[in-house]
């Protein structure tokens, strides 16, 4: 009895109930020659302009340095990647845009500044601006002549973004708004010429968004925030005191600011994930090199199993995360193309495509940032005492990594969002969760399927494990909805458990699809290390999911129901024995031999 059906059209969130064909996913091994050249341009830019000045950037002694670097990136065209050619950009797809922040992901504070400018600082105008606003601002943003910042957060309004108190009141002559309020944690605040500001008009309950030029006046700011990491990234509190914003600088419609903020964050999240992967790959390479060089007990430390374990784990998680990130980016691009083909206006099509995959964007934000934190943490450990030295590279990597779990929506908020969005879609009938969940529930009371006949074809066992993992997720979410109904939102611990299962399922599946497709392109014998990494990831994903699932079951059910669910869980998370130790050794040995993270 199968609950999972085949399909070709991809919809956001559907991965949970449908099986995906490997041939339909994009994998990073498919980057074109041009994309690879762009990637290399970014890496060369870091090598030439950023790496030699990391300390100088972090010291913030020269306030002109970061805007100058941004200007240089602008000259190379790196600030206009997603802006259409008619406004001086290159009109590239989302996946290419993501690849660029992946390449720059090891750029520490610089990539934060660049991402804030090209992402949350530019896209609101690109997606929601009218023609006049686009004509006026986009060319300058693409060239870097203007640098931008995004002002949503306030002292009393962080995760609860719509609680913002900044107000905009219409002047008597109706020509402009007077803006008053205080924003906090504003990236690029110190040097931005343009601010996307979220404020409430008059007594509105919902935010509106405005394009505010620094030259409008009435803008003051505090000193730079003293931060744990990304110390070179400008972060300011900004005050608006009767800042005069012309009425034509209202972005989109009155009361649509919250919607803008939420939708822009979808792109912000998926791009943050790709940037985190770039950071992770760089950390792995640095760690691998050190493991080859550093000798203790007469051996390079890379020869020790404990170190091999770490290297293999870092690589497997990064590989899996990367698989899922570009699978998502490409799906968003495909959805965009199909909406445009149906006649939708491009900016609208972008937004709709992003909204369609908002669940995956949130999943990837959480996963990418947590993989980076894992890599940074183990990177420090591999460096031993040198890991703790501020003169060695892991110190900065470790401190700079941490912010990614906080901004663009904290990982808690994003975990909650994944499940919240999924259940809302189910409620609206956009995804049939209940049907499959009921089928799984029925399967629980039926005779276990021993699955002998299914174990055929490439990765048949792995695919079965994934199907079962999804069944476990459906079983528990179904039970949770039935038990708590509307009150489920108060059971955040359970929602977190469900989110973790969803995340692990999506990422493990993406790694599997990538390797399956890659084998089709390169042959099995040339993909053995990728296969190992995928199996390591899948095995751990199932183990992790099984652990949180158990917690959820204890909290949801009692007595016979609990016993039955636990038995079901056992069945759904049963894995064949797999020698993880040997697989990790093969992965680590490969990395050590190549002396870098070599999966390109």
């Amino acid at each position: 009895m199968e609950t999972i059906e085949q399909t070709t059209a991809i919809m956001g969130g559907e991965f949970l109930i449908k099986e995906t064909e490997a041939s339909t996913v994009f994998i990073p091994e498919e980057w074109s020659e041009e994309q690879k050249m762009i990637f290399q341009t970014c890496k060369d830019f870091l090598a030439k302009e950023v790496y030699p000045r990391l300390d100088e950037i972090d010291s913030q002694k020269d306030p002109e340095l970061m805007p100058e670097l941004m200007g240089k990136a602008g000259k190379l065209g790196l600030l206009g990647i997603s802006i259409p050619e008619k406004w001086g950009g290159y009109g590239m797809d989302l996946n290419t845009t993501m690849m660029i922040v992946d390449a720059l992901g090891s750029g520490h504070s610089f990539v934060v500044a660049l991402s804030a400018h090209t992402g949350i600082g530019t896209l609101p105008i690109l997606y929601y601006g009218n023609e006049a606003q686009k004509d006026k601002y986009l060319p300058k943003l693409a060239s870097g002549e203007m640098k931008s910042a995004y002002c949503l957060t306030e002292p009393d309004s962080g995760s609860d973004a719509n609680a913002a108190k900044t107000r905009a009141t219409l002047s008597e002559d109706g020509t402009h708004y007077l803006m008053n309020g205080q924003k906090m944690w504003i990236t690029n605040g110190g040097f931005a010429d343009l601010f996307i500001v979220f404020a409430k008009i008059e007594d509105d309950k919902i935010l509106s968004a405005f394009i505010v030029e620094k030259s409008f006046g009435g803008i003051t700011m505090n000193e730079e925030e003293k931060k744990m990491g990304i110390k070179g990234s400008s972060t300011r509190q900004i005050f608006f005191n009767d800042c005069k914003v012309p009425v034509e600088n209202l972005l989109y419609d009155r009361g649509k600011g919250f919607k803008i903020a939420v939708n822009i964050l979808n792109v912000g999240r998926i791009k943050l994930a790709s940037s985190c992967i770039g950071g992770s790959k760089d950390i792995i390479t640095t760690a691998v090199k050190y493991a080859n060089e550093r000798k203790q007990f007469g051996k390079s430390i890379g020869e020790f199993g404990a170190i091999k374990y770490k290297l293999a784990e870092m690589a497997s998680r990064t590989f899996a995360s990367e698989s899922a990130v570009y699978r998502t980016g490409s799906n968003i691009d495909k959805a965009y193309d199909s909406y445009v083909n149906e006649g939708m206006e491009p900016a609208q099509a972008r937004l709709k495509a992003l909204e369609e995959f908002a669940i995956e964007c949130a999943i990837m934000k959480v996963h990418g940032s947590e993989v980076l934190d894992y890599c940074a943490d183990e990177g420090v450990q591999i460096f031993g005492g040198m890991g703790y030295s501020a003169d060695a590279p892991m110190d900065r990597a470790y401190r700079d990594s941490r912010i990614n779990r906080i901004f663009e929506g904290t990982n808690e908020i994003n975990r909650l969002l994944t499940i919240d969005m999924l259940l809302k879609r189910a409620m609206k009938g956009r995804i049939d969760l209940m049907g499959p969940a009921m089928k799984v529930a029925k399967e629980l009371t039926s005779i276990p399927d021993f699955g002998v006949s299914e174990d055929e074809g490439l990765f048949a066992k792995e695919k079965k494990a994934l199907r079962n993992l999804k069944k476990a997720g459906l079983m528990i979410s179904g039970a949770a909805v039935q038990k708590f109904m509307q009150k489920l939102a108060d059971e955040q611990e359970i929602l977190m458990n469900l989110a973790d299962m969803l995340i692990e399922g999506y990422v493990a599946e993406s790694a599997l699809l990538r390797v399956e497709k890659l084998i089709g392109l390169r042959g099995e014998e040339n993909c053995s290390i990728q296969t190992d990494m995928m199996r390591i990831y899948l095995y751990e994903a199932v183990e992790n999911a099984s652990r949180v699932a158990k917690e959820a079951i204890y909290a949801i059910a009692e007595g016979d129901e609990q016993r039955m669910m636990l038995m079901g869980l056992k069945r759904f998370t049963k894995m064949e024995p797999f020698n993880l130790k040997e697989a990790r050794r093969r992965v680590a040995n490969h990395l050590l031999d190549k002396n870098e993270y070599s999966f390109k």
Partner: protein
Amino acid sequence: MKILVCITHVPDTTSRIAFTDGDTKFDSNGVQYIIGPYDDYAVARAVELKESQGATITVVNVGRVETEPTIRKALAIGADDAIRINAEPEDSYFVAKQIANVAKDSGYDLILMGRESIDFNGGVVHGIVGELLEIPSVSSVMKLDIDGNVAKIAREIEGGKEYIELEMPFVAGCQEPIAEWKIPNMRGIMTARSKPLNVVDPVDTDHLDKLVRFELPPPKGDIKMIDPEHMEELVSLLKNEAKVL
């Protein structure tokens, strides 16, 4: 001004070097290729000259089809067109002969090369090309300015610099800091594909040498740390153990 820039397609400087086929073949598995770093400076200087005083730039490479991404990178940096001479670059003389053949009737004012390739480090192709074309060749060029028909050059010599002037045409083997290292920009990358890349057949050439085998340097030995206070210990080790004194 017409400039020909000769570029190599070489393993990235951080690549791990290994050989196969009884140490007669370089193991290119998983190796990333780049424009030879010295050639990269030659390309960059050509582009600077083009920007400051106008020039057309042709890049040439002797190599098989797999070198085309490297060639297109030079186009992205600013060359106008490219020639790939479709042959394995078997030895320095062979390569020089091919380049000279392409250059001989084309009226290039400047033929820029790298000081040396970074795979086989011959440092001779510019000399041979100059000889074959019967024009001057200079190498280790660190500075190159063109004034009318005259080039003002600074070249690196042991312990200092030599300043020379000569008339075009000539061949120059370039090195840093002749130009600022150029990174291809987005516009360049997007237009590279539409620039001409002509593939031509090689001319028959004698082989002056034959490869026997490669050998990697012996692995680094153990390192002994000696306290700066105990210089006599160092001297004794160098004398008795390393036997280099």
